[in-house]
C-alpha cells in the first residue's frame, strides 16, 4: 500500500471536491468533540444545573422539587443574612487582596535583589502558602485565643496592651483577625507571582534609566511599576477571585460568628446547601456569588484592557 493510498484510507473515500471540503471542515471539530464533551459534563452541565436548581424549591428534607420562577431570588433580595454575608465577603476580598498585593510587591522587590542565601529565603517564604488552610486556621485559632493565645501574651509582655484582647469573640475584631490570617497565608503567593513579573522586565531598561541618572525610587516608579502593572493586575484578579471564596478560615475560626459578624457567602452557602439541604435556595446563593465574581473579574479586565490599549 502506497503512502497515498494509506492517506486516502484514513481520510475516507473521496468522491468529489465538495465532500473533501466537508471533511476538512468537520475533522477538527470531530477531534475536538471528546474534549468538549468531557469538559461540558464536568463544567458546563453542573453550572447549568445549578442555575436550573436556583429556580426550583428543591429540598432533600421536604422532598419538594417544583419550578418556582424567581421566588428564591426575591427571597434573597430581602434576606438580611445574605447581604450581611455579601458585604463581609466584599470587605474581606478588597482588604486582603490590597494588603497582599502591597506586601507581596515589597517582598518581591526585596527577593529580586542579590544577597547571600537568596534561594533559601525564596523557598522558605513559600511555607505559609504551602500549608493546608485548615492547619493555618487551627494555628491562628490558638495564637489569637483571647485567654491562652500567644499573641495576647506577647503584646501584654511588651506593654502594648494591658487587658487581653478578644480577637475572635468580639464583633469588632473577628473579621480583621481572619483577614490578618489570610494575609499571612497568601502574601507569599502574590510575592511569587510578582517576582516572576519582575524577572520579565528587560535589564537594559533599568540600566538605561540608571545611565540617565535615575535613582532607585525613580527607577521603580517610572520603569519597573509601569512594566509590572499587567502582572499586578492579573495577580490581583487571581487573588481577588480566590479570596472571594474564603471558607476554611471562617469555618474553623468563628463558624460565622459572633453575631454573624464573620459570615461570608461561602459559609452561608455551605450551611444552606449541606446543613439544611435546601438545594433550591442554596443554588440561588451560588448563582449570586457567580454573578458577583463575574463582575469583579469584568472590572479587572476592563482596567487591564484599557491599560494595554493605552500602551500601544
Amino acid at each position: 500500500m502506497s503512502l497515498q493510498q494509506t492517506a486516502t484510507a484514513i481520510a475516507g473515500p473521496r468522491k468529489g471536491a465538495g465532500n473533501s471540503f466537508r471533511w476538512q471542515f468537520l475533522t477538527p471539530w470531530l477531534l475536538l468533540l471528546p474534549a468538549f464533551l468531557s469538559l461540558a459534563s464536568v463544567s458546563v452541565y453542573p453550572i447549568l444545573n445549578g442555575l436550573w436548581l436556583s429556580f426550583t424549591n428543591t429540598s432533600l428534607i421536604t422532598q419538594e422539587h417544583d419550578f418556582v420562577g424567581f421566588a428564591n431570588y426575591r427571597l434573597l433580595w430581602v434576606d438580611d443574612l445574605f447581604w450581611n454575608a455579601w458585604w463581609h465577603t466584599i470587605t474581606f476580598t478588597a482588604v486582603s487582596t490590597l494588603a497582599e498585593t502591597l506586601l507581596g510587591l515589597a517582598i518581591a522587590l526585596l527577593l529580586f535583589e542579590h544577597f547571600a542565601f537568596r534561594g533559601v529565603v525564596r523557598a522558605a517564604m513559600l511555607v505559609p502558602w504551602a500549608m493546608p488552610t485548615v492547619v493555618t486556621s487551627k494555628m491562628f485559632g490558638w495564637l489569637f485565643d483571647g485567654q491562652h493565645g500567644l499573641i495576647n501574651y506577647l503584646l501584654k509582655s511588651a506593654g502594648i496592651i494591658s487587658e487581653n484582647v478578644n480577637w475572635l469573640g468580639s464583633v469588632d475584631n473577628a473579621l480583621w483577625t481572619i483577614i490578618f490570617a489570610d494575609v499571612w497565608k497568601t502574601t507569599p503567593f502574590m510575592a511569587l507571582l510578582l517576582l516572576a513579573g519582575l524577572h520579565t522586565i528587560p535589564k537594559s531598561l533599568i540600566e538605561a534609566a540608571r545611565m540617565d541618572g535615575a535613582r532607585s525610587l525613580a527607577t521603580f516608579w517610572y520603569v519597573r511599576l509601569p512594566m509590572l502593572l499587567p502582572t499586578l493586575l492579573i495577580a490581583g484578579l487571581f487573588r481577588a477571585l480566590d479570596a472571594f471564596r474564603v471558607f476554611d478560615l471562617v469555618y474553623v475560626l468563628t463558624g460565622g460568628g459572633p453575631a454573624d459578624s464573620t459570615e461570608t457567602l461561602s459559609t452561608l452557602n455551605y450551611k444552606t446547601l449541606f446543613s439544611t439541604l435546601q438545594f433550591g435556595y442554596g443554588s440561588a446563593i451560588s448563582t449570586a456569588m457567580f454573578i458577583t465574581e463575574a463582575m469583579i473579574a469584568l472590572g479587572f479586565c476592563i482596567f487591564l484592557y484599557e491599560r494595554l490599549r493605552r500602551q500601544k
Partner: protein
Amino acid sequence: MSQDESGRSAAKTALAASLNRRSLLKGASLAAGSMAVGGGLLASTASGARAQGRTEITFASAKFYAKKTIAQIVDAYNESQTKIHVKYIELPPPSSSTEVHQALVQQLARRNGAPDVFTQDVVWIAEFAGAGWALPLDEYFPAAARAEYFPGLIDACTYQGKLTALPWIVDGGMLFYRKDLLEGIGAKVPETWADMTTIAMELQKSGKVDFGYLWQGKQAEVLVCDAVSVIGSNNGSILAADGKSATIGNDQAVEAIQFLYDTINKSKISPADVLSWDEEPSRLPFTGGKAAFLRNWSYVYGIAQDKSASSVVDKVGVAPLPHFAGGKSASCLGGYQYGVNASTKNREAAVEFLTWMSSPATQLRFAIDLGLAPTRPAVYDEAELAKEQPFMQTLQSVFTGATPRPVTPKYAQVSLALQSGLSRGLVSGDIKKELTATASKIDAILGA
C-alpha cells in the same frame, strides 16, 4: 527445578485436586483462599457462608469505637442466632455530623429499603419522621417497654405522637465543678444559677481561679445546646409543644439568655472569649485548673482524670446543671438513636435486630466496650458497669432530667436561625429584641 517453578507446580497440583473433588472441597478451598488473603476476610467469608438461608438486613451507623467497634457488636449478634444476618455499613464519625446526615438522607430518600436499620443524631429524628422515612415503632414497643428508657429520650424519639426512633446511647450537658475549691470555702454543689454565680464570684475574687464559669458561646450548634439548658431550667422553651411556633421570644427564655449575657457583662464570672469558644477551648482552662465551673459533655471527665493532660486529677465532680428558682435542671440531650427504614422489606427482622441492640445486655456491652452511656436507667445499676465505668454510673441523675432540642422536621434551619439570633443577643445585650426577631424568623421557617 527452581524454587519459583516448584511453587507453581505445587499450586497447579492443588488446583487440579480441588477441581476433581470440587463439590467436596468447595468450603475448604474457600476458607483456605480467604486465609491466604487475611484474617479479616476470613471472618467475613465464614459468616457470609453461614448467612445462607438467613434474612439479610443492612445496618448503617456513624462510627463509634473504643476497645471494640460497632462491627464487633454486630458480629456478636450474627453469632448469637441463626435467622438473621446483619451487614454493617460504617458511616463517618459523629464529629462529621453533616456528612453522616447527608449520607443517610441520600439513602433514605431513595426509599428502596436500604439500609434497613440506621442510627441517627437525636436532632434528625423529627426530620426523618416528617419525611416518612422512619417506621413508627409503637406496635413493637408498647408503653410498658418505653417506660424502661429515660423519659426525655422517649420524648425526643416521639414525633407527632408516634415513636419513630428507639434510644441507643445518650449524652447530655452537665456541670463540672472543682470539689477541692468548693470544700475549701465550705460551699455545697450549687443547684441554682444564682448559687453558682455567688460561689463563682467568691472563688474568682479570692484569686483561686481566673474564671468562675465556662460555657460555649461560639455561633455553632453547641450554643443551641447551652441555650436549651438555661431556657429549659427556667420553665421556658424554644418551640411550642406542638412544634409549630416559636416561644423563644417569651419572658422565661429572655430571662435565661439574659443570665448568660450577665455571666460575661455583670457578674463577670465568664470571660468574653466564651463567645468564640466551643467545647475544647472552654475545656482547656478548666482542666488546667483555672476555672471553678464548666458546662460540657461527659468526655471531659476522662481528660480531667488523665495525669498527662490535666492538673485537676481527682479534684473534679459532676452534677446536673443548675436551674432558676422554681425551675428544674435541664441537660441538653445529645446522643444517637436507632431508626427503622419505613421502606424496609424485612420489617420483622429489622425489629428483632433492634430489640437485641437496645436490650439491657447489649447496652451494657456498648457501655463497657465502647464507653457509650446506656439509655435505660436500669443498666446503671449493674455491678459490672460500676466496676468498669464508675463515672458513667454517676451520670444517671444528669440524664434523668435531659431535655430534647426543638423537635421539628426543619431543625437544621431552626438551629441556624437560633445560632444567629442567640449570638446577636449575647453580643449586643438587647436580648428581648434579638430573641423576638429570632422567634418571627423561626415562625416563618415553620410556616413555610
